[in-house]
């Protein structure tokens, strides 16, 4: 025995009888907040009606298959709501006795809804909002983050750029608050890993026609001129969290360079062509069940509920406090088709996971990159490390 397995062994030493003990029912919800939004640049990005819910359906199947041997059953209800009605939907779920809620919502709703859930002693999984504040000063003790932060996404891209020795960046960002927050994450990543942002340009969101019949003609003329006369750079880093211009960048630059970030090579938690580490099985199960390709929202919801299922399996408890304590402990580990176990940061409740770098067709690379080391885990080279987070809710 070269490593210590004390607590892990104790928790895992459950010998499970095939007949099972008394049935334990675990009820959860996925609450998805749908915001008014413009059509995406690409039809491929149209939101499916069962977005996120489909991942929950697969998680229920997976958890129930395991639960059969444990005397546990899982049921997840799904609710789609407008932002205004989200609090009452959350209250209804809590009144119904549900104590585990996966939230697919933006940061503002995530904090408000988590506080509502806290009053009922419920545990919330953030499956969407990437904002840093949620993992720092605005963190909540009952809020765990499945979705990567903007810092994890930016660091994943930055490490690949450094590995390629593309260390002179042209940062092109959008003008909306979310775009600027993402640009901040790239500035932070450049400092962290030693890249130089040689120049920045902000492409203002004037709300132009995106996909009209001749829209591409305008784009083809406007974008290159907007990007001329820049300092010499190796790569263009795009920060467009609101999806209004980055998709056009790769072939409309003035100086031909690779694009990474919000277009070109993008940091994602999953994509439908990801096959490594047994993910093919995940894809075929998902497609059989839902008749479509998986999206990040689906995977994040699936992963949240698998985290819950794993904690219930190992603790034989459905009590939110017991479950959360286990999830945040050293004993927790879960396989998520990422080639290594995913675990949680006890200082801010963030799930540690490798980030796939995707070119809209294949997995080009996976971060953390080789050679980026950390005393705890290479995964902690992505995102907010303990000294960088102002979160105190978990202490």
């Amino acid at each position: 025995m070269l490593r210590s397995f004390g607590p892990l062994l104790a928790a895992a030493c459950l010998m499970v009888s095939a007949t099972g003990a008394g049935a334990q029912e675990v009820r959860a919800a996925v609450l998805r907040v749908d915001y008014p939004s413009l059509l995406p640049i690409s039809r491929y990005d149209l939101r499916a009606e069962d977005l996120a819910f489909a991942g929950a359906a697969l998680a229920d199947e997976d958890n129930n298959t395991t639960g059969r041997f444990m005397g546990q059953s899982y049921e997840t209800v799904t609710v789609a709501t407008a932002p205004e009605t989200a609090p009452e939907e959350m209250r209804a779920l809590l009144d119904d006795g549900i104590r585990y809620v996966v939230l697919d919502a933006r940061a503002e709703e995530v904090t408000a809804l988590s506080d509502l859930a806290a009053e009922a002693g419920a545990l919330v999984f953030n499956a969407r909002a990437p904002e840093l504040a949620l993992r720092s000063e605005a963190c909540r003790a009952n809020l765990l983050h499945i979705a990567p932060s903007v810092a994890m996404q930016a660091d994943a891209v930055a490490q690949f750029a450094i590995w390629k020795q593309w260390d002179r960046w042209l940062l092109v960002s959008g003008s909306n608050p979310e775009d600027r927050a993402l640009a901040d994450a790239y500035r932070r990543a450049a400092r962290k890993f030693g890249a130089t942002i040689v120049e920045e340009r902000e492409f203002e969101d004037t709300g132009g026609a995106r996909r009209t019949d001749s829209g591409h003609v305008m784009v083809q003329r406007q974008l290159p001129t907007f990007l001329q006369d820049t300092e010499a750079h190796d790569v263009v880093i795009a920060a467009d969290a609101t999806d209004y211009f980055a998709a056009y960048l790769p072939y409309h630059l003035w100086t031909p360079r690779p694009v990474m970030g919000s277009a070109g090579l993008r940091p994602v938690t999953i994509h439908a062509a990801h096959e490594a580490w047994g993910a093919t099985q995940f894809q075929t199960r998902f497609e059989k069940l839902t008749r479509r390709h998986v999206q990040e929202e689906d995977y994040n919801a699936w992963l949240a509920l698998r985290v819950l299922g794993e904690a219930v399996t190992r603790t034989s408890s459905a009590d939110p406090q017991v479950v959360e304590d286990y999830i945040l402990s050293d004993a927790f580990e879960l396989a998520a088709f990422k080639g290594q176990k995913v675990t949680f940061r006890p200082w801010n409740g963030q799930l540690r996971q490798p980030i796939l770098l995707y070119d809209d067709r294949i997995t080009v690379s996976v971060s953390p990159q080789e050679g980026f080391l950390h005393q705890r885990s290479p995964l902690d080279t992505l995102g907010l490390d303990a000294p960088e987070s102002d979160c105190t809710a978990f202490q």
Partner: protein
Amino acid sequence: MKHLMLSAALCMAATGAFAGKAFVSNERGNTITVVDTETWEVLEEFEGGNRPRGITLSPDGSLLYVCASDDDTVRVFDTDTYEELYTLPSGPDPELFVIHPSGSPLYIANEDDNLVTVTDTDAHTVLAEVPVGVEPEGMAISPDSKWVVNTSETTNMAHFIDTADYEIKHNILVDQRPRYAEYLDDGTRLFVSSEIGGTVSVIDIAEDGTPTLRQKIGFEVPGVLPEWLQPVGVKAKSDGSRIFVALGPANRVAVIDGASLEVVDYIMVGQRVWQMAFTPGEEYLVTTNGNSNDITVIDVAAEKAIKSIQVGQQPWGVAITPN
């Protein structure tokens, strides 16, 4: 003695059946590579169906069974002529299987459907379908043939299926993503590898077959990230003195002492080492290395890698003919 050797040589000349052969399934190349286990030369490479993974032989070595995962069938080949003889019903996406010592049935893990399919190899019929955990993979049969063990990768259990009535009688929780199960020859112990958990669970087996988790064995190699130490294939020597564990992307095979259950050595092999098989008499251990498209031959007594041989694309499993 001289007489014996002479007759042995005559037999070989007559049938050619005494030359040992290693059959390697090439998951991405859709082929089976045949390697001579004396000269370690590649003899042949033939079509193995789509995505061949699990591979095993009939007890007499005359039939080769291959899980053609993407064809949803088990393909059966003649080990002399390499001709495909027939296919067996396997259930969808067969990945790995284990054969009853008598030669029938085959117990097949259906990765996509959370089932173990039991297939009669003589009658070519399905005898039973046993619902198991999510993503079944590892398959083992107890030496007394009373139990078949299946490991489910996402449920993280070893399921103990009673071969008399195909009911699951015991489940043991192990670490994340259990890939392979291996009984000791005397049936007193079972080893289950957990790829993502990075451990091998040691499970003691009582006389009536009841399993108890004894301990977990971890791995540590200086200069290799712990995340890369991913146990997959496991092979135990018949006397139980050594257990070999393939460590996937760590490109090493760990050597575990059977008495102390301590890791005593790591043997460098090819890249992403997955499955393994002994030659008859356990003189050599052959490993499949998926990323370097080769197999490594380990001298078991010396515990050293002595040779590597290029095979097809992404070698997955290996089966070696009995003498």
